[in-house]
């Protein structure tokens, strides 16, 4: 950002200007400024849910679009995510207190043999931002972690991530185990990771392959809406 913006005093901006500035600060990965902006909006009486959706998710959507379009790259997205995490840290407990709407519940983790979690963490954060409750299983998850936690939490969605060609076939192990146990259709199964593609997602029996975090959110929303509609018709 330009030097002149060093002089911006966030508390002196009106609400619209502040949200716009927070978009810029997210884009630039400025965590301290995001935390400050969130606190200012809370002091002004904004609901945590509105701050989350209008300021943080709105800003991250711009970041996500520019990543998809090749304008931003992984380091910048990570910095932006880190800034958003700072804001989420303040909002999460408040969202729980205020009973913000929840679209659905997701259990997500990186599959067995794989320790890569950058993509998974981005998806988890954006899903939370979109109103999903997310239970993060972390890395290197065997099949029982997904199945047991999804059952215990009465989750709607199981999300699996893999970065390696050698670990992505494990997603099929999880789905096949779900089929064997007769629980496959109890969950929406989303898969993602750099070496995956749509064809692979179909071949292993996932509901969808998600290219990036933004696609994961939109896909999850759409499949949840479809499930609700089907439940309503049943």
């Amino acid at each position: 950002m330009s030097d002149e913006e060093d002089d911006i005093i966030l508390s002196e901006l009106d609400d619209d200007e502040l949200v716009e500035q927070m978009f810029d600060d997210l884009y630039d990965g400025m965590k301290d400024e995001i935390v400050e902006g969130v606190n200012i909006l809370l002091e002004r009486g904004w609901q945590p849910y509105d701050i989350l959706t209008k300021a943080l998710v709105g800003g991250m959507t711009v970041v996500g679009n520019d990543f998809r379009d090749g304008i931003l790259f992984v380091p910048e997205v990570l910095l932006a995510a880190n800034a958003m995490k700072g804001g989420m840290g303040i909002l999460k407990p408040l969202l729980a207190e205020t009973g913000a709407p929840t679209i659905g519940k997701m259990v997500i983790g990186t599959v067995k043999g794989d320790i890569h979690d950058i993509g998974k963490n981005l998806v988890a954060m954006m899903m939370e931002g979109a109103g999903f409750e997310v239970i993060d299983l972390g890395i290197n998850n065997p099949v029982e972690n997904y199945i047991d936690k999804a059952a215990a939490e009465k989750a709607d969605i199981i999300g699996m991530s893999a970065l390696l060609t050698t670990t992505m076939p494990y997603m099929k192990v999880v789905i096949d185990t779900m089929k064997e146990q007769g629980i496959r259709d109890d969950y929406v199964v989303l898969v993602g990771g750099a070496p995956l593609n749509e064809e692979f997602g179909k071949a292993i029996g996932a509901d969808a392959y998600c290219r990036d975090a933004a696609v994961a959110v939109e896909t999850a929303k759409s499949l949840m809406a479809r499930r609700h509609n089907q439940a309503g018709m049943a």
Partner: protein
Amino acid sequence: MVPEAERLLVIACGALAREIIAIRDASGLSHIDLTCLPAILHNHPDRITGAVEDAVQKHKGSHARIFVAYADCGTGGQLRTACDRLGVEMIDGPHCYAFYEGLTQFAERDDATSFYLTDFLVRQFDAFVWKPLGLDRHPELRDMYFGNYRSLVYQAQTDDPELDVRARICADRLGLRYERRLTGYGDLGAALRDWVRD
């Protein structure tokens, strides 16, 4: 001199160029020509299959046979599918770390927490690791990338003390324990020689 129509062509990842030339020269395979794709594709596996396909199409009329010196390299099986369709052979295994160590041995180790460097990647650490990950500009991101790793394993193709020192420095920079394994060229030499014999 073998006429071009009888010569063999290896289309290789640029990160393997030095090693393939060494194997070729040591094995008396002077009828093999080598052309390389940019090694930086290593950082963009989604671009590898298309680049290899283009290169095979470009050269298929000029050589008797073509070998693709790539393993899967993060293409999720797409490179194998493309090579099968084009009727060219490629290297078995997930990536160069596996074939340098030996596919069986690498699989048996089943070590997910090691980050691997080869001779090439030690030489090019800044250009292929540090800068593309933005660590030159944002060193605070290091643990987001490498926090789940425990070791940096330097798979040495050559016994070079200077590269050993440099690799150890790379490990320090990434905050990882250092291990060196002298692998030589692993399965790469056998893959090339077997292909030539076929």
